[in-house]
């Protein structure tokens, strides 16, 4: 379960610099795409880029990629729980399907 040789992983600075470059490119991309009209795809692209950036930060800046399984579980569980919370949107989205007086 523990990382190899019991030693703490030390990420080389080059990995941080590459991550940073990728984050900047993705930021410029999301600003650029917002100026183009893609309809509903705009939101999907913007959120896709945001999620990609978040994953890059979690994996490399927060070093989860080089961490133990237990850390993997803890770093994922918050976001999974968040998805569950967002699941309540199904109520807001489907309510107009069956109009009930007074809602």
């Amino acid at each position: 379960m523990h990382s190899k040789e019991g030693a703490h992983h030390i990420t080389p600075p080059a990995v941080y610099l590459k991550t940073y470059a990728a984050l900047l490119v993705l930021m410029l991309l999301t600003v650029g795409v917002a100026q183009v009209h893609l309809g509903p795809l705009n939101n999907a692209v913007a959120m896709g880029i945001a999620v990609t950036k978040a994953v890059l930060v979690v994996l490399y800046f927060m070093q989860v990629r080089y961490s133990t399984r237990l850390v993997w579980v803890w770093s994922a569980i918050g976001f999974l729980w968040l998805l569950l919370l967002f699941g309540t949107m199904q109520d807001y989205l489907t309510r107009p399907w069956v109009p009930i007086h007074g809602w």
Partner: protein
Amino acid sequence: MSVEAIQPAPQELSEQYEDLAQQSEAYVVGMWAFLVTEIMFFGALFLAYIVYRTAYPEVFRDAHHHLDVVLGTINTTVLLTSSLFMALAVHAAQLGRKKAQNRWLFLVMLCALTFLVIKGIEYHNKYVEHLIPGSSFQYHSVAEGEGGQAPRMSAETGFAVPQSIPRDKAQMFFVLYFCMTGLHGIHVVIGLIVMAVLAWLTSRNSPLVRDYMPVEMAGLYWHFVDIVWIFLFPLFYLIPK
């Protein structure tokens, strides 16, 4: 780079742990457990945002024109840069280079301050434009008047979109904007304090920061603050046409 990077700074083992690996894991898991509560804390606000944006998409589209995309983009860059500096501060700490660690921490604090100043300028602009929610809130649609801008055309019909944006619904956009960026701003201030304390303790050679893990934990917190902004930025500043 790679040869010198192999030797990490020595750590002390507290008696309740089997070995250093277990001790480090306890640090990281504990911090992540805290971050999970933070994710849920912000998550509720993000859900509120989704509910209102789904209910009033045209209001949100109109209201977001009052935000300055250029300042928003600059602030995103500043925060991403601060995250890089933070990662490098943690790297220096892991190698036991206290001086370099404090130099990076200082740069992170500088970025955090820049972020707060720019945010302050933005808040001030909203104040001048009467866009702070409350009794003095006044809303004017951006597309309507200002500088003889042509009204936007609807993609479906080709006609001008009617620009009667209800004041209360527009106010809701700014309630969410101030709550979410404000809560994020508070987190930036807390991060600033944490880093200042860490740098101060390190410069005094305090036994509290003999281990590099406290700096690494501050790093995890700071990267989390960065992640929140990564989502706030497109949601508020980049609502598509």
